[in-house]
C-alpha cells in the first residue's frame, strides 16, 4: 500500500477507529430511523377499534382484525407442518445418518430451499397447492407455502443445536442402558430445545413477514377466515395492497406498525424465554 508510507501506522489506526465507529453508528441509525418512523406514523392510528373491527370501504377505513387473524392462522399452519418435519430431519441428519453424501445432499437442498426467491415459492404455491391439489385460495395453501419457506431455517438451526450437544450427555445415557431413541428423546432433544426453539421462531418470523410467497395462494379476502379452507389476507399482503393501490396511507402505517410490533414481540419474548430455559437446564 502506497499511502501507508505517507500515513504512519498510529495515525492510520486512529483514522480507522473513527471509520469503524461511524459504520457501526450508521447501522444503528438506519434501524432507529426506519422503525422509529413507522412507529411514529403508525401508533396514532392504532386503537382498540382498529385492532378488533373489520375493514370497510376495501381497507380505506375500518380496522384490520381479519388480517391479524389471517396472519396468525397461516403462521400457525406453517408452524404445525414445518416444525415436526424440520426437527425430524435435523435429528436424523445429526444422530442417525452415517452417509456423508446424503448429509451433503440434504444440506445443499436445505440451502437451496432457503435461497429460492419468495416469488418463486409464490408461483409454486399457486400451481401446486391451489390448482394441482385443488386446495384453492385458502389459509391452508398459504400456510403450506410458508411451511416450506420456514422449513430450511428450522432444519439448519436445529441441526446445529442437536449436533452441539456434548457427547458426554449421550454416553451417560447409554451407560445407564437407554436405547438410542430414549437417549435422543429424553436427553438430547431437551438439551437442544433452546437452539431448536430459536430455529422455529426464526422460521416463523420469516413466515409471518412474507407477502410475495402467499400473494397467489392465500387469496385477498376481507372476511375473517374461520375454516382452514377459507381465503385470507395476511398483514404483509394487506400492507402491500394498501400501499400500492394508494387506498389509505393512514391504515397502511397502522398495519406496518402492527407488523413491526408483532415481529419485535416475538423476537424479544422468545429470546427471554429461551435464555430462562437455558439457564434452568444448565443449573444456573
Amino acid at each position: 500500500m502506497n499511502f501507508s508510507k505517507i500515513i504512519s501506522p498510529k495515525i492510520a489506526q486512529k483514522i480507522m477507529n473513527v471509520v469503524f465507529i461511524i459504520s457501526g453508528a450508521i447501522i444503528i441509525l438506519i434501524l432507529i430511523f426506519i422503525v422509529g418512523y413507522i412507529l411514529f406514523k403508525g401508533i396514532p392510528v392504532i386503537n382498540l377499534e382498529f385492532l378488533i373491527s373489520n375493514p370497510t370501504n376495501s381497507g380505506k377505513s375500518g380496522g384490520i382484525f381479519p388480517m391479524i387473524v389471517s396472519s396468525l392462522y397461516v403462521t400457525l399452519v406453517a408452524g404445525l407442518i414445518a416444525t415436526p418435519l424440520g426437527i425430524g430431519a435435523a435429528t436424523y441428519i445429526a444422530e442417525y445418518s452415517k452417509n456423508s453424501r446424503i448429509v451433503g445432499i440434504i444440506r445443499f437442498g436445505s440451502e437451496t430451499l432457503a435461497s429460492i426467491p419468495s416469488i418463486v415459492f409464490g408461483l409454486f404455491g399457486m400451481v401446486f397447492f391451489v390448482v394441482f391439489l385443488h386446495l384453492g385460495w385458502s389459509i391452508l395453501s398459504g400456510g403450506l407455502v410458508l411451511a416450506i419457506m420456514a422449513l430450511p431455517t428450522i432444519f439448519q438451526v436445529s441441526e446445529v443445536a442437536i449436533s452441539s450437544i456434548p457427547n458426554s450427555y449421550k454416553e451417560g445415557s447409554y451407560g445407564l442402558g437407554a436405547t438410542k431413541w430414549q437417549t435422543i428423546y429424553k436427553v438430547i432433544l431437551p438439551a437442544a430445545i433452546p437452539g431448536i426453539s430459536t430455529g422455529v421462531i426464526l422460521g416463523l418470523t420469516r413466515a409471518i413477514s412474507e407477502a410475495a410467497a402467499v400473494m397467489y395462494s392465500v387469496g385477498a379476502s376481507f372476511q375473517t377466515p374461520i375454516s382452514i379452507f377459507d381465503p385470507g389476507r395476511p398483514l404483509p399482503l394487506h400492507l402491500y395492497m394498501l400501499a400500492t393501490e394508494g387506498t389509505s396511507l393512514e391504515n397502511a402505517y397502522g398495519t406496518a406498525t402492527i407488523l413491526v410490533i408483532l415481529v419485535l414481540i416475538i423476537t424479544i419474548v422468545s429470546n427471554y424465554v429461551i435464555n430462562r430455559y437455558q439457564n434452568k437446564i444448565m443449573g444456573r
Partner: protein
Amino acid sequence: MDDNKVSEFLIEKGLFITTIFFIAIILVIIIFIFKEGYPAISKIGFFNFVFGLKWHPSENEFGVLPMIICSIYVTMLALIMAVPLSLLSVIFMTEIAPDRLRQILKPAIETLSGIPSVVYGFFGLTVLVPFIRETFGGTGFSLFTASLILTVMILPTIISVSQDAIRSVPKEYKEASLSLGATDWQTIKNIIVPAALPGIVTAIILGMGRAIGETLAVMMVAGNVAEIPNSIFEPVRTITSNIALEMGYATNVHYQALFASAIILFLTIIMLLIVANYIQNKYKIDIGSI
C-alpha cells in the same frame, strides 16, 4: 427387548422418511416450475427469450434481457453500498467495540433482519421516493431507490455470515501479529481479513442471492419500467417484480413466460449457491496447521 428394537427401527425409518420428504419438496418445486415454464422457452426460443430486448406481452414479444440487466444493476449497486458498510461494522463488532456496544449492535442487526420486506418497501415508498424526487429530480421511483432499500435488507445477511468467518480466524494469528508490534488496524488488514476472506466472499454471494430474489420491496420503489435504464435515477423493473406484477392476469404464453423467468431466477440462485459452497470448502481455514 424386542419391542424396543422394533420401535427403534420404526423411529429411525420414520425420521429417514421425514428427511427424504424434505428433499422431495425441492424436486416437486423444480418439476412444477419447469413444467409450467418450459413450454414458453420452446415456443419463444431460448435466445429470443433470454436476449430479447422487448417485453410486450400484448404483442407476443417476450424478451427478458432488460429485466435481467435491471436485476443485475440493482443488485450490484446495493452490494457496492452494503459490502463496505457491513464489513466495517462486522470488524467493529468483533474486534474493536467494547462489550456494551456489541450488546446493542447484535440485537439491532437481528431486528433489521426480522423486519418484513413489505415494511421496508413501504418505508421506501413513503420516505425514500419523495426524498429522491426532491433531491435528484425525476419521479423518485428509480434504480437508486431500489438499491438503497436492498442495501438495508442485505446488511444483516452479509454481516452475520462474515461475522462467523471473522470469528473463526484462530486467535493465534491475531496474537502473533500483535506481538510483532503490528497495530490493531494492521492486524485486521493484513491478517484477519485475508484469513477470513473465503467466508466474507460467501457472505457477499449470499447477500447477492437475497438481493436478486427480493420482490415486493423493490417493486414498490423501482418504478417498474421494463427498459434498460440510462442513469441510476431512471425507473427499473427486475425479473422478480415482473413476475409479481403480471402473474395476476397473465394467460397462455405470457403465463408460461413468467414461469420461465422463475426458472432463470432459480438457476441463478443455484449457481450462486454452488459457487459459495465451492469457495467455502476450498479455502477453509486450516486450524490444525498452526
